[in-house]
């Protein structure tokens, strides 16, 4: 455990920036949402990742999507409020169903129930909604947040739903009464600075045994060009009490953008700061107070998400292009304005994980 070493093996990218790269269940595909209305796929069966046909016919940003726990089904939500279901293994996936106005505006997160029978969504309209997977029929509507809801998560044991918002409020919902049942205080991730609401919960996950809820974000120092210390807060699922707070870097490291437990038991987190700062770190989940991470890779740029391949070895981290920030006109030799892209860093251990 103390000698974890990962190396970058490939960094596929597309002509658009990407969100939340995830591996398919069989590990043969890598899927990400794009900044311009579709989803992008890479086939991983060859030596070099190959991009397949984009799909989705979405609008705006496709930040939110989730893979069904057992089927080749993907639910995606866009920033204009549209939800769709696709079989992502098809050559040219067509929507199985589509809801144009599932939310009023930006859908931030999608999460499947443990069986996949239903899924939850949340977004800018401050509402959490539960839909039936097979046809997109609305089953529940949960109101109680007072801000943009950034993340929704399903408990691995009993399908309890929790959602977290831009003010750092985490709600455990009472599904029988369609109202908040308990609340977890992650308000340390929020700062009202001048006119701006800064921060909020950026990511959540469960400990493997389901006893601890982890919420990640930043402890904001200021708005505008946001700076803050990336933090992870652990809550007891039983009592809602805070059981730990882990700082993941310095003020310039800013947001903890994603967090997950590796199948081997250690905790992984990625951060994104200004300008261009990005880190991935592995932490000993049994000794979070240990100062040194088990593994730290700090030469990446703006890490926004992570996912572990089903083989337990390869890791995908959605990043950006170093030097993509900067004022004024950046044009190529032909005078064309240069956009940005999101290389997905594929990392493998020096030796297979055991």
């Amino acid at each position, binding site marked *: 455990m103390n000698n974890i070493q990962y190396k970058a093996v490939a960094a596929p990218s597309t002509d658009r920036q990407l969100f939340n790269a995830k591996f398919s269940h069989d590990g043969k595909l890598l899927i990400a949402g794009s900044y311009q209305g579709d989803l992008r796929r890479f086939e991983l069966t060859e030596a070099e990742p190959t991009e397949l046909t984009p799909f989705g016919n979405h609008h705006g940003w496709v930040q939110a999507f989730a893979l069904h726990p057992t089927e080749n089904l993907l639910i995606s939500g866009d920033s*204009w409020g549209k939800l769709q279901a696709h079989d992502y293994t098809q050559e040219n996936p067509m929507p199985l169903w589509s809801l144009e106005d599932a939310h009023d505006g930006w859908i931030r997160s999608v999460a499947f129930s443990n069986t996949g029978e239903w899924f939850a969504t949340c977004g800018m309209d401050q509402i959490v909604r539960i839909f039936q997977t097979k046809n997109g029929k609305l089953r529940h509507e949960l109101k109680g947040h007072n801000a943009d809801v950034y993340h929704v998560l399903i408990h691995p044991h009993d399908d309890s739903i929790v959602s977290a918002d831009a003010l750092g409020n985490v709600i455990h919902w009472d599904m029988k009464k369609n109202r908040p049942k308990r609340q977890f205080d992650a308000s340390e991730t929020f700062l009202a600075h001048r006119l701006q609401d800064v921060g909020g919960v950026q990511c959540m996950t469960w400990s493997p045994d389901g006893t601890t809820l982890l919420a990640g974000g930043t402890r904001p120092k200021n708005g505008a*060009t946001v700076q803050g210390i990336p933090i992870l807060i652990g809550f007891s699922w039983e009592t809602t009490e805070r059981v730990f707070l882990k700082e993941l870097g310095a003020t310039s490291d800013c947001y903890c953008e994603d967090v997950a437990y590796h199948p081997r038991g250690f905790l992984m987190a990625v951060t994104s700061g200004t300008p261009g700062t990005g880190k991935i770190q592995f932490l000993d989940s049994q000794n979070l107070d240990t100062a040194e991470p088990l593994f730290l890779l700090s030469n990446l740029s703006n890490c926004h998400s992570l996912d572990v391949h089903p083989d337990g070895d390869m890791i995908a981290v959605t990043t950006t292009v170093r030097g993509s920030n900067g004022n004024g006109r950046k044009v190529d030799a032909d005078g064309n304005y240069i956009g940005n892209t999101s290389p997905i860093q594929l990392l493998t251990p020096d030796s297979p994980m055991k």
Partner: protein
Amino acid sequence: MTQSPNNSERHPLCNTAEHVFTRRQLLGGSATGLIGLGGLGGLVNPLFAKEMKSKEKQVLFIWIDGGMSQLESWDPKPNTQFGGPFRSIPTTIPGIHVSELMPKTSQIMHKLAVDRGVSTFDNSHSAGVPRINRGDPKDRGVIYPYFGSAVANLMGPGNSGLPPYVWVKPGSGGFKYQDAGFLGPKFGALAIGEGEPPPNILLPETLSSTNNADRNSLREFANQQYSQKRPPKFSEAQNFVYDTAQALMQKRSLFDNPDPKDVARYGDTPLGRDMLIGRKMIEAGVRFVKVNSYGWDTHGDNFNAHASLMPRFDQAFTAVVEDLDERGMLDHVLVIAMSEFGRTPRINGHIGRDHWPEAWSIAMTGTGIKQGAIIGSTNDDGTWVTSEPHDIGHFFHTWFNALGIDSEHTEYINDGQPLPIADEECSPIRELLS
């Protein structure tokens, strides 16, 4: 990918040779009149000064410091590479859309004028803020005044008895002489910080009017002694600040707690508070009021930032425009909302937008402005201006003309040196003028 325009094509409205000739004609024809004069600070032509005194036009200048994103406000490009997550919404002008983050503004669009074809030069705050505020004139070895100081000088304080240039802002207050440039500290801004009146604005209860009069006599004596060996502009400024304080003491009600209904309409935010004070200052007759909002420099997390910034701007901006309109004050108040630049179409790695002077937007309404004039355009992905690009010099000409000032024939006189009040290589944007 979109093609960058050629810099040499930036200002087709301008005809340098023509402007120079006109200016020479003007200088030759008015040489005898260009003497230091007392009227409005002794820095403008006397006939013009007399004319301006009779006009009671005012300015509400809303300064969005750091750079509002044009793509998340006035010039959305939804569903494009750089368009961001937000939708656009229709406005009261058919065919014109703004960001969904401006629902209230969308309903008063027919009262506004917006130029989406703004193209300026500076992409840093340190250079951009002063140059934009000064109208980016040619370098003549002097520091030009900010727009507020320029209006204070050219149009005078009016009849309100209040200072001509008030700056309502978060943070510290005080007298900000730096804005005045060569006009001298007298034309600086009286800053109202955090919505609080200047400290010690009320006379102590223990001070009788007789004692206060005696105290003033002593102060005036000391001022005379001080002035004898110093340039007059310093003592003028000192007296001006004191007189300003005296005037404000008579208008203490400007700082009374606001009506809760007004707070609800303007928003319980620093900008809502300051916009409300700004409206009160305008109603009280202040010539030029600058309302300042900080925190718009969104290099990181631009979209979440604008999701909270824009609705708060939208609320306060719409409320003040509607209030001025309902009171019939847009007939004589020029309202301007702008930053020092826009923000890059490219979305950087920290999901931010950087500084972008190449293609952005400025909004305005009120006296002299053609309501509903949505002019200028950018290409499909918002990278470059596709209409005639307008630099800040064009806007200074436009705003001066909206205030009744002939910007192409009016000059400052700085120690005998005639200086144009706006960049002579630019001209008014006629499509924006009523």
